[in-house]
């Protein structure tokens, strides 16, 4: 301001050209320092990540190589304590294990194992509404429950809906507690083997089947001829052995003596209330009662959070599959695959 007031003062000299700060030429900038630090930390974390990867790979190698669709649920996963609900609906048979959306015994067994392996699952509730199924399929689910119980010590609760007879009851026998509705149809402890004979029909239409076999029992159960007394005796042996397995499983699961189970196991059905009286079920109640009980056994209290195995892809495939079944695809497949087999099944419904 003072300079402007001096008369005749010379114009100010042009400002010197802007030169770089000599310090900045010598010293690296602060950004460079931070970038070097970040690069160093990145290198360290990169090395550490190899340890994590080695550990993850080690764990993965010890796991079965099944597609776990539950990983795709992404952000919706919750880590709070829950009761896992696994539905077992309809007849129990083995299906193609590669089709994860199907409800065959292998898929159910896999769900039981997956639920038991989850840390947040404190108890498992099997929501059973099944008349049973083939012996092998039922025993697969039964052994999956026993293995999960032995491995994780998590409580299993079985809940019966409309029907839980024969193989449905076999599965429930492995659980710690069974809850049924008063009007549930249960029981039907026994084994069945049914084979049709078209011999009369074939005679009538003049058709004959030629069979060349290595042994006399090789075509046992064939619908093309009547059953021989020898074959009947052999099949009765199979039935008796499977029956013994059923009775033993019930006796072990229900903590009863085999002699006490056998009088109840003549294939008859019971209502839920009758079953309670003869100690085939522990309690009468609905789904909410079963959930409350599972929550208490899992030490997370009544009315627990529920984890259902609801993978979106699985549901989509299942829906498409059920649509195809509705249009006759499944019934044709069942008819084509129908063959005599041992079954823990009640054919009353």
């Amino acid at each position: 301001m003072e300079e402007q007031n001096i008369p005749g003062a010379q114009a100010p000299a042009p400002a010197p050209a802007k030169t770089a700060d000599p310090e900045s030429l010598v010293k690296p900038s602060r950004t460079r320092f931070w970038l070097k630090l970040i690069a160093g930390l990145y290198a360290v974390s990169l090395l550490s990540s190899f340890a994590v990867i080695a550990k993850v790979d080690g764990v993965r190698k010890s796991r079965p190589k099944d597609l776990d669709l539950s990983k795709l649920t992404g952000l919706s996963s919750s880590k709070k304590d829950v009761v896992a609900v696994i539905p077992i609906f309809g007849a129990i048979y083995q299906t193609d294990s590669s089709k994860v959306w199907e409800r065959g015994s292998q898929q159910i067994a896999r769900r039981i194992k997956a639920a038991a392996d989850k840390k947040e699952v404190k108890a498992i509730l099997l929501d059973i509404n099944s008349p049973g199924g083939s012996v092998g399929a039922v025993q697969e689910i039964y052994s999956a429950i026993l293995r999960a119980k032995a491995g994780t010590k998590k409580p299993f609760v079985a809940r019966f809906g409309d029907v839980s007879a024969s193989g449905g009851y076999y599965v429930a026998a492995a659980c710690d507690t069974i809850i049924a509705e008063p009007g549930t149809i249960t029981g039907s402890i026994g084994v069945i083997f049914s084979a049709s004979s078209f011999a009369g029909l074939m005679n009538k239409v003049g058709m004959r089947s030629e069979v060349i076999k290595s042994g006399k029992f090789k075509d046992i159960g064939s619908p093309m001829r009547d059953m021989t007394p020898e074959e009947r005796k052999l099949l009765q042996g199979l039935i008796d052995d499977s029956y013994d397995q059923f009775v033993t499983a019930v006796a072990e699961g229900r903590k009863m003596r085999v002699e006490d189970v056998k009088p109840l196991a003549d294939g008859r059905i019971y209502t839920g209330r009758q079953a309670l009286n003869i100690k085939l079920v522990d309690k009468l109640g609905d789904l909410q009662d079963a959930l409350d009980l599972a929550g208490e056994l899992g030490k997370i209290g009544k009315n627990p959070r529920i984890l259902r195995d609801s993978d979106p892809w699985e549901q989509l495939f299942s829906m498409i599959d059920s649509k195809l079944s509705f249009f006759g695809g499944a019934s044709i497949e069942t008819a084509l695959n129908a063959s005599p087999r041992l079954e823990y099944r009640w054919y009353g419904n």
Partner: protein
Amino acid sequence: MNLIATVSDLVDEPQDFIERTDNREIGWAGICGCLFGTLSIFIFLRMFSAVPPGFYSFLNVLAIMLGINFFFASAMHLFLEMTGSRGSALKLFFLVGATDFFWAVLIPLGFLANLEYLNPVADFLLCAVIVLLARISLMRRLYSISRNKALLALSLPYAALTAGFLMVFVYAIVYVVWLVI
């Protein structure tokens, strides 16, 4: 070429850096960014066993990253050129690659996700948001455009892809219904 110095210049004075620097130097930063970003994504995915191990697996991820960068840079450049904004497509491609440096954040986040403190999907989305913000910032300087236009140019390829996927999905559903009926 000193990578640290190049990136430091880009961080300190992006406008000046973009204007004065030749394609070679930006290209160096872009390719290194893409390589480090891909390595970080690959390591993150390996932590969750989402990709198989091995060099070829890494090359696959790198090829996908380069493809995505190329597609997005070309789509954005096309949109900006069509709306009258001038800029170098090659520089844009390299700058998009340079923003991939931010994927490095995935590695520490991956540790936390492994310890179940964070969700891996959320980690990935967080890094994606950082990368996209960096791309907007660089793009508006390269083409001298507003932030909103840069955001629009960036989101258009995503919108196009989403629309494409939706159309394919709808077509697939219609096809399945047709198969069933």
